[in-house]
């Protein structure tokens, strides 16, 4: 394979410094072993030898390494950052793999076979043919309560998760409700408590029983964890304060969707604001469909 990629050209110039998808084959093997182990023990954080990547920590070095180990030349790749395909992080990671792997890329969720995401799950339901790769800043859900890694590992292995509820208790006592709105802790198959990466809690229900493979990569913290397809994922809560997946109580100002997660966008200095879908592909698809419907209605009316 390497010969093929040695010949891969970039803007007319020959480059022979990179293996397919940047990482060398040994590294990819090591990452794949970690991924397989993670899939075998859903929610368990598997340590792996995270490499230096040509981007700063916090920009998705974990997700990029998982994507690199997952991609094949036939894949179609999509990258989203907070739901959008056109933000800096998404654009640079997409270009990175265009250049180092030469894979096809797309903005359309349904067309992609591998989707790397930062902080969102696409609105369009995923399928069994897809892999969703999350970028994770801090994989340990207990970290802010228990600073010792030795201790948190022990807590995971002994299933001592009382502390996680202490955090939710603190939320209610201070704010009157569970104020954690992103990175909301979940329990996987009744065993491991997992940080779903900083996705809004609105997305939490989509984690459960998802047909796609979900992989989580934390580069700085050197951990990979995973949810195999159709895994049961439950958001933690109290009996008298149940989990509520919340979103802005509004419709999208562009596509009028009431189902999708919304961003609030400030439009001027006079207090002007609008709510738009955070998933740009979902919003665009809906608007395109609405336009076609309008046009065809016009056509029908014109003909009659």
């Amino acid at each position: 394979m390497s010969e093929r990629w040695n010949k891969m050209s970039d803007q007319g110039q020959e480059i022979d410094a990179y293996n397919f998808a940047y990482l060398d084959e040994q590294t990819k093997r090591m990452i794949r072993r970690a991924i397989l182990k993670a899939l075998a023990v859903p929610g368990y954080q598997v340590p792996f030898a995270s490499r230096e990547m040509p981007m700063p920590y916090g920009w998705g070095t974990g997700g990029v390494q998982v994507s690199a180990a997952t991609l094949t030349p036939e894949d179609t790749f999509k990258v989203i950052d907070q739901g959008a395909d056109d933000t800096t992080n998404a654009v640079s990671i997409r270009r990175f793999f265009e250049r180092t792997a030469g894979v096809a890329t797309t903005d359309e969720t349904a067309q992609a076979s591998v989707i790397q995401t930062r902080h969102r799950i696409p609105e369009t339901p995923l399928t069994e043919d897809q892999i969703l790769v999350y970028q994770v800043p801090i994989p340990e859900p207990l970290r802010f309560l228990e600073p010792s890694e030795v201790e948190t590992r022990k807590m995971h292995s002994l299933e001592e998760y009382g502390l996680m509820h202490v955090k939710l208790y603190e939320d209610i006592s201070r704010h009157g409700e569970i104020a954690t709105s992103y990175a909301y802790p979940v329990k996987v198959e009744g065993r491991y408590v997992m940080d779903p990466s900083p996705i809004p809690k609105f997305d939490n229900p989509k984690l459960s029983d998802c047909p796609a493979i979900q992989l989580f990569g934390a580069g700085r913290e050197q951990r990979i964890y995973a949810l195999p397809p159709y895994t049961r994922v439950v958001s933690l809560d109290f009996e008298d304060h149940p989990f509520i997946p919340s979103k802005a109580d509004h419709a999208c100002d562009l596509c009028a969707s009431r189902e999708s997660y919304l961003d609030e966008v400030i439009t001027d200095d006079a207090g002007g604001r609008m709510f738009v879908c955070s998933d740009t592909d979902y919003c665009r698809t809906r608007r395109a469909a609405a336009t076609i419907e309008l046009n065809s209605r016009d056509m029908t009316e014109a003909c009659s």
Partner: protein
Amino acid sequence: MTPLLQVRDVSRYYGPRIGCADVSFELYPGEVMGIVGESGSGKSTLLGCLAGQLAPDAGEVLFDTRAEGPRDTLKMSEPERRMLGRTDWAFVHQHARDGLRMGVSAGGNVGERLMAVGERHYGEIRTQALDWLGRVEIPDDRVDDRPRAFSGGMQQRLQIARNLVTGPRLVFMDEPTGGLDVSVQARLLDLLRGLVREMGLSAIIVTHDLAVVRLLADRLMVMKDGRVVEGGLTDQVLDDPQHEYTQLLVSSVLQV
């Protein structure tokens, strides 16, 4: 009556040095045992061995579990031992900040053990936390404050509430009044004495303060260089010390 705790020949070495050696005793339900001795006499090592925080090099520690009767805690699996640690046992540290979560509110600190054993009803946890704060004389309106904002004595009382909320049967205390001024000490001792009597707790109290054991302990063990040199009823040991070290210890107490 079955002893709650039977300790047999517990020894712990730090390399060639003795931490504690050949310590044996029995503790019955409702009994309070004091362990006194100077710094470095092995009191804390012994307490650590009994509470499962240190692994002794030799000996047995049999605890009368609710379900299966006396079992050697040293041979239990770690999950079992840690389960005991948050249900039937309690450990009050000398420094409250070792035993508290300083970044978590007082209510959360008290509620942690409840949540750890599976309580999942916020209202219920809150009610119990308030009840316990009341019992250790912390006002209701401090329930959402963090322990950082508490005085040393309040922190120590909060630690006690946090430990006793699950109704343990055996409490380990390591210098519970250390570092507190005498009036605060007196109130804390009063409180502890009340709780021990009211809940029928058994307790092992390690201290170098003879006044504390005089007030709290039914029985007393005196340690020197890792070994028990004298034991017996508290008043008997303190009023009629037999071993020369105990005599020294008793006569060293400052009279005001």
